[in-house]
């Protein structure tokens, strides 16, 4: 397993939680402080902070070390990586199915299709 796959696992695990997905949606509108993020969720600050740590750990968000309220920032590139996983697998299945399409055409064009062809392959 590669580091990239490990990171992908962590990213998808982080995104599997509905609260964390909602936080991502909020941050897509702009940077926000922990207080601002906690407001819509009837959650304690430590509760929100826990979620933010998960998101920060897998690189989906970053937090300024300088500013007084340490606003959270969405790292869009990390989200793109997750979206890239989906694109990559969509590509694999598309190419596979193009080949399967061609394969089915060939074996059906030369009956008896199934077993005969298996012997040849």
């Amino acid at each position, binding site marked *: 397993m590669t*580091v990239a796959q490990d990171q992908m*696992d962590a*990213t998808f*695990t982080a995104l599997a939680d509905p609260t964390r997905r909602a936080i991502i949606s909020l941050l897509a509108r702009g940077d926000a402080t922990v207080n601002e993020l906690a407001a819509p969720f009837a959650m304690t600050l430590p509760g929100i902070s826990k979620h933010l740590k998960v998101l920060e750990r897998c690189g989906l968000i970053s937090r300024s070390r300088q500013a007084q309220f340490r606003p959270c920032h969405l790292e869009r590139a990390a989200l793109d990586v997750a979206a890239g*996983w989906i694109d990559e697998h969509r590509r694999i*299945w598309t190419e596979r*199915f193009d080949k399967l399409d061609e394969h*089915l055409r060939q074996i059906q064009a030369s009956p008896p299709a199934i077993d005969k062809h298996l012997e040849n*392959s």
Partner: protein
Amino acid sequence: MTSQAMEPGELRFTRIFEAPRELVFRCMIEPGHLTHFWGPIGTSAPLDHITVEAKQGGRFETVMISDGDGSQYPTSAVYEEVTEPERLVWTEAQSGMRVTITFAEAGRARTEVSIHQTNVPAEYRSEQAQAGFLTSLDRFAWYLTELRPGGMS
């Protein structure tokens, strides 16, 4: 990520083939067929590297080999369900990826094949797979520590 139906790490994919359902299903579980299409463009999937034990708990192993530099991409999965000619489900223990394929008749000698691929949440994984998942998380934590000393709080 914006669509409500889509969970993170989820892929849905549908394709119609001009072939009877039985035949399309057999293409997915017989090495002699798989070798013709399993490797995406620029790769091949040699017959002698394909293992199919088409039953629940059976192995499904393939190796995709790059035409360019010969690098190998082995995958190892276990069937969770084999219901001929309707449904195939397998899980790749290492990546935690689960693939469900449904085969539906879409008219005479036409078959609709639907792929549903997910990164299985940790809690749904087998014990063995869970152990692998935790190991990978540990390694990821280690990697972060190496990269960004003091970056983990």
